[in-house]
Structure formats: structure tokens, C-alpha cells
């Protein structure tokens, strides 16, 4: 019974660690890169068409 | 449409409020039926007076499987005797059909109106 409780605390701790890392990383990215670059993706048609035209699949 | 439509810039606060609004709407849709007690399937339960595997309509093979799962006739009686109620209320049936049908007609029609604008701007 105690083992499960302990494992439960460990689960909370690991979750907090992972979630914390993601939030910090997201904040770091927001600082280091310009918003225009982050929002620069477009629906992937252009690349696809290039491949189709040249017959290059990779 | 000769002129391109230039949308207004949305403030950070506005973006935040819009995000919150959608989430709030989802919660409302989930909890409203719960608050008004409208959830769950419509079921009826008729437990026979004397509860044995036979009176519950279970043959020996079925009874054996129930027992392997740890049930007795008493503990299984309610599960076995619960049935869905499939009587159809015509008024609600028609209302539901109209709501779903109307929703799709509205969405497709209104989308088409917006779509014409998109196409004329894209292919001008």
C-alpha cells in the first residue's frame, strides 16, 4: 500500500518535471526567436509540389 | 470583390478571451445535461422476485461464466435485468432530426457564402 503511495508521489514529481521543462523551453524559444519566424510555416503544398515536379521523393 | 479584405489585428487580451470562450462553451455542453439530470441511457430494471440463475434466464454455461467472474445470482441480478428503453417519443425525434438537419444546412450554406469571397479574392 505504501509502495503505491510512494509511486504516486514519484508520478507527480516526474509529471511536474516534464511539464516544467516544456513550459521553460517554450518560454526560452519565445525569447530567442522572432515571432515572425515561429509563425512562418505555411500549409505544406509548396514542398510537395516541388517533389512532384522533379520526381524526387525524399 | 475588387479590394482585398484586411482583417483587424487582434490584441493579446482579445486572443486570450477567445480561447477562454471556446473552453467555457465545451464545459457548458458537458455539464449542462449533468446538472439537469439528463445523462445516461434511458433504462428500466425489472428484477424477478426469486433470484436464481434460472429465473434470470441464465443457462448452466452462462451461470458458470458469471461465477468465474466472481458473481452470485444476487449480485448479477441488476446487471442482467436492466434493459434499454427504446420507445421513441415522436416529438423529440422530430426536434432532434430538425436540429441536426438544420445545423448542416446552415453550416454548408453559410460556408458557401464565405467561400465565394475566398475564391474571388484568391483568383482575382
Amino acid at each position, binding site marked *: *500500500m505504501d509502495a*503505491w503511495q510512494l509511486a504516486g508521489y514519484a*508520478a507527480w514529481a*516526474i*509529471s511536474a518535471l*516534464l*511539464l516544467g521543462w*516544456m513550459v521553460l523551453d*517554450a518560454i526560452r524559444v519565445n525569447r530567442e526567436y522572432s515571432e*515572425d519566424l*515561429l*509563425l*512562418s*510555416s505555411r*500549409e*505544406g*503544398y509548396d514542398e510537395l509540389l516541388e*517533389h*512532384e515536379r522533379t520526381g524526387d*521523393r525524399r | 470583390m475588387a479590394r*482585398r479584405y484586411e*482583417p*483587424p489585428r*487582434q490584441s493579446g487580451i482579445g*486572443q486570450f478571451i*477567445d480561447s477562454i470562450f*471556446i473552453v467555457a*462553451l*465545451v464545459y*457548458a*455542453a*458537458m455539464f449542462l*445535461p*449533468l446538472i439537469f439530470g439528463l*445523462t*445516461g441511457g434511458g*433504462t428500466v430494471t425489472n428484477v424477478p422476485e426469486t433470484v436464481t440463475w434460472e429465473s434470470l434466464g441464465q443457462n448452466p454455461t452462462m451461470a458458470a*461464466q*458469471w461465477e*468465474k*467472474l466472481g458473481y452470485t445470482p444476487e449480485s448479477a441480478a441488476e446487471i*442482467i435485468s*436492466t434493459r*434499454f428503453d*427504446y420507445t*421513441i417519443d415522436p416529438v423529440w425525434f422530430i426536434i*432532434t432530426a430538425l*436540429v441536426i438537419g438544420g*445545423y448542416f444546412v446552415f*453550416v*454548408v450554406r*453559410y*460556408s458557401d*457564402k464565405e*467561400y465565394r469571397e*475566398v*475564391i474571388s*479574392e484568391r*483568383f*482575382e
Partner: protein
Amino acid sequence: MTDHAIAAGQPQRINLLKVLGPAHVWALGVGIVLVGEFMGWNFSVGKGGALGSLIACWVIGLLYTCVAMIDSEVTSTVAAAGGQYAQAKHIIGPLMAFNVGLYLVMAYTMLEAADALVVGDLLAAVAGTETFNTQPWVVLTIAVLAFLNYRGVFMTLTVNFIITAAAFISLVVLFVGTQPWNPGAVLQHRELLTDLPYGWIGVIAAFHFGIWYYLGIEGTCQAAEEVRSPGRSLPLGTMSGMITLLIAASITWYAASGLLPWEYLGQAFTPMYDSAVVTGSDFLKVFLAIGTVLSAVASANGCINDAARAWFSMGRDRYVPLWFGAVHPRYRTPFRSILILIPIAISFAFTGLLDQVITFSILSGLLGYTFMPINMILFRRKWPLNSIRRGYVHPFHPIPALVLLALCIATYFAVFLGYGNQLLAMMAFYIGASLWFAFHRYKYVRRGDQFTMSWPKPQGY
């Protein structure tokens, strides 16, 4: 050709990574669905009896075969991360697209919450203590999978391939373990199968949960922007996924209906685990418990992937705040969308309302399937064959579209039988959201930019 002005003056443009192959597509589609074979499909037994469930399994299998055919054609042509959302945007129009995007986000986020609940509940069953707290396990499941998704799609779906295959194998092992070649030894179909308890109306009612045999296979489309060659990989991954699921659904039904009385099966929370218990084999018991957890994890993983892609695409078009349309410069994932959906999924899971959450997920899926035939018919009308290059052309048009539409209508009726109130509550949600979008949100959207395919002008416009 309108090239987008934002790119001018920028050193480069970042997109999602194109790294996935057909196996990843298969893992994404089957991974999301397979949990339905371990639990949930059996509620159809409750609504229509064991034979009713089998008929529903086949009829709904036909529904999904139509879905897979239609999706393969449209997505191999509209290869964008939003999947059906991007299809709707190009073929029907903005309001429909907004609704489809919401169906996707809702169906997947709700399913993700349900999957996490299942992991917690199964651990609680294993622990066997009354004070067991499932919350840390629900959060841990979502946190680990979100982390995986955040760090890159290739690893995410490679992991999904492995756990999905393992879960599928556990179903096959159970099937073999019941000695299907030796009826009467373990399997007792002769004694356990009854007549239809509700008659034929029960068979129709069973369509409702029959959807759970396959719900989510259409999620393969969400990978379109990250697949190396969408024209080949998407139809291949989707169709092979569909075949896998038809096999899985059949052996699942056969094993479970030969082991459990239908009244029990119709309300069980872990039917495959219970089936293993009844065989009396400890090996099968452990194996199926692990299989159930793996299938739930694989499903949640795929759901995070898909819900985030849909939300991301809507952000890119400003259907929801633009902020969400960002790509991580290093991992090339829609990181803000992944992050924002974490607390939402966790809060849904913490409500503990498994059946509400599931019903919402099923109905959102069903609305999405109703959209598909309309989409397909308009697609062929606006761009007839040979007017644009299609990656795949499905045969017998418009029969699959019409069959799909008819089956959707029958399934609404099935949901109405017994769950009419939830159906109306959910319609109220989508109607409210539509009005909000049409009369408020759409003013922030750039009109012409929504159409990104390099196709000719649609016919009739």
C-alpha cells in the same frame, strides 16, 4: 500565384518536418483506435445483444471503409496538417472548416482524457486498494506523451508503432489462447449466444457503440504535412490500418462473445481483461492487462498528435488565435498547441465523467463522418477528375459517399435511442460555436490566404 509576403526579409521559413513513412501512418491510425477493441466496443453488446454487436461491427466497418476511401483520395490531394479541416476549407468553406476543426480537436482531446482515465483505472484495479489515487497516473500519462510529442513527431510515432503492434499481438494471443479451432473447449458460443434481445431495433441501436471498433482511423490524415510522400503513404497506411482493424474487431468479438454472457459484456469496463480472467490462464490475464494499458497509451499518444495538429492549423489561419500557429524551431512540432491542450485534457480527465467524455468524442466523430460525403461530392463537382492531380482516386464514386451518408443517418438514430439528450446538448455546443465563429471570429481571418492549394479555380465560381 500569391506568395506570402511574410516570408520576405526572413532568413528562412520553418515548417513541420517531413519524416514519416507508411508504417507511421498505420501506427497513428490504428494506435488511436485499438483501445476501442479493449473496451468500449462491448457497450454495443449492451445496446443490441452479442449478435447485434457483430452486425454493427460489420455495418460500421463498411461505414469506415467508405471513410477510408474518401479520406485517401481527398487527403492525398490536400496534403495539409489539419487533415479534414484543410479539406473542408478548400472544398466547402470557412464555417464548415471551423466546425470540422472543432470536431477533430474535441474528438481527440476527449478520447485522450478517456485513455488516461483508463490507465488510472486499470492501475487501481491492479493495486486493489480502496484509497488508490488515480490522479497522478492520469497526469503522468498525459505529461509523458505530451513530452514525447513536443520533442518530435518521428520518435512519437515510432514509439506508437511499437506499442500498437504489441497491443494488437496481445489480442491475437488471446484469440489463439481460446483455441478457436476447438469450439466448446474454451469458447462456448453455442451456449452463450442468445437471440436478439431487443429485436432489430437493438441492432440499429448497437451502431452507436459499433463506432468504437474503429473510431479514429481517419486521424491518419492529420499526418499529411509530415509524411514524406503523402500520395503513396496515406492511402497505404490508412487502408492497411483499416484491414488491421477489421481483423482485430472480428477476433475481439469472437473471443469475448464466446467467453462472457452478453449481459455482462454489455456493461464491462475491461472486457478483454475479463475474457482473459474467465479462461483461467494467469498468462493471458497479465498479457491482456498489459495490452489494455499499451493500447490506451498508444491511443492517447496519437490523440495528442492529432488534436495539436488540428488546433495548430486553425491557429495558422486565425480561426483560433494566431499565437497557436507556431512551429518549434528545433523540434519542428506545433509546440504551443501541444502545450495548451495538456491542461484541457487533464481537466476533462479529472471530471471523471468517462461516459460523458466518451459520448462527446463519439458524436464529434460522427459529425465529422457526416461532413465527409458532402465534402466528397463537392470535391468531384468543383474539381472533376483530371482537372487536378490526385494522389489516389477511389473507385465507384458516388456510391461510397451515399452509403456513408445513409449509415451516418442510421447512426444518429442509434445514438438517439437511449442517448437523445446528450445528442441535443452537443448539437447546442456546435451551433453556439458556429454562431460565434460566423459573427465574431471570422473577421480576423484573411480571406484569400485560406486557400493554399495551387489548384485552378473551382467550377461554378
